[in-house]
């Protein structure tokens, strides 16, 4: 019996990710174009960044005419979790994962791709990871393109309602663990409270910086009050 190639295995694992990405990036495409970006710019952001939260906040920074420093810091804080995932994945790579492969595959470390790759049995090969990344990225950029292109054609009632899609996904990520662990609930509530306070009490602070400040402050509070032991941090 012929064994399926590692690339194909990865590609198959990537299909559910691609379907999820398709609809979320559709929302991103609409959001980016309605914020004043061209379809090509929205497409390029998705192709080069491959991340939902960072892209959404990045578009807001562009739309509000923020500085490049703000843009860099926003991306750093929002996406720093990928460093942790990259670190964790790096322990699992097989011998064929040479330095050039690592440079290339690093591009595709997202929450969902990390989840699939890190839970795969055994070691991780470049081919498998490329399979997952290729299919997932295709879904992400296609959705962005369709959303950006269709956004203007859709009735206002639909396109405006789709503006909430990305935020709905964020809620779906943070609420289940917050319901199960009081330390996460604390961090989530603290961040939301601070962000609301900054928004209404300090309106001159831009959205990007508010996310950085509140995100770090709530995480520091969490780390001080509820330090994580090794096993818990793995979850």
């Amino acid at each position, binding site marked *: 019996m012929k064994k399926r190639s590692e690339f194909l295995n990865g590609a198959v694992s990537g299909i559910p990710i691609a379907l999820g990405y398709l609809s979320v990036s559709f929302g991103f495409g609409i959001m980016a174009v309605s914020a004043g970006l061209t379809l090509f710019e929205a497409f390029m952001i998705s192709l*080069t960044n491959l991340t939902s939260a960072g892209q959404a906040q990045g578009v807001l920074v562009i739309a509000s005419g923020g500085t*490049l420093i703000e843009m860099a810091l926003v991306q750093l804080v929002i996406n720093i979790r990928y460093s942790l995932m990259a670190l964790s994945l790096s322990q699992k790579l097989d011998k064929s994962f040479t330095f050039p492969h690592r440079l290339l595959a690093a591009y595709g470390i997202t929450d969902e791709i990390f989840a699939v790759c890190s839970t795969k049995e055994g070691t991780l090969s470049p081919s498998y990871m490329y399979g997952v990344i290729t299919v997932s990225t295709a879904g992400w950029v296609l959705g962005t393109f369709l959303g950006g292109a269709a956004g203007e054609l859709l009735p206002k009632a639909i396109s405006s309602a789709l503006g909430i899609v990305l935020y709905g996904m964020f809620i779906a990520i943070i609420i289940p663990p917050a319901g199960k662990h009081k330390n996460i609930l604390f961090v989530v509530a603290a961040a939301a409270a601070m962000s609301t306070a900054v928004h209404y009490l300090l309106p001159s602070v831009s959205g990007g910086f508010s996310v950085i400040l509140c995100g770090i402050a709530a995480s520091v509070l969490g780390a001080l009050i509820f330090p994580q032991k090794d096993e818990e941090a793995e979850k």
Partner: protein
Amino acid sequence: MSIAIYILVMAGVTYIIRMVPFAFFRKKINSVFLKSLLYYVPYAVLSAMTIPAIFYSTGNIYTAIAGTVVALILAYFDLPLIVVALSASAAAFIIGIVFGIVPL
């Protein structure tokens, strides 16, 4: 400022964040504080990004509140990301139409 430069900075920073630990890092982080901090950052950042921005995401605060409530309830019951996200959007759409807030 040119949008291309913004995109370059976005993509560059995001890539470096992924690449450096993946390609170079070989040691384990031992500081409990640092590990805890990294563990909490995604939750804190997503929460700060979502609240209060979600209430302005549909252009109307009432349709946005409807979407938020639906998302919170479905997320609490651990439904898949995509179900939660699209249901939030559907709720905002329906409230907008039913109450004539947003013209079809």
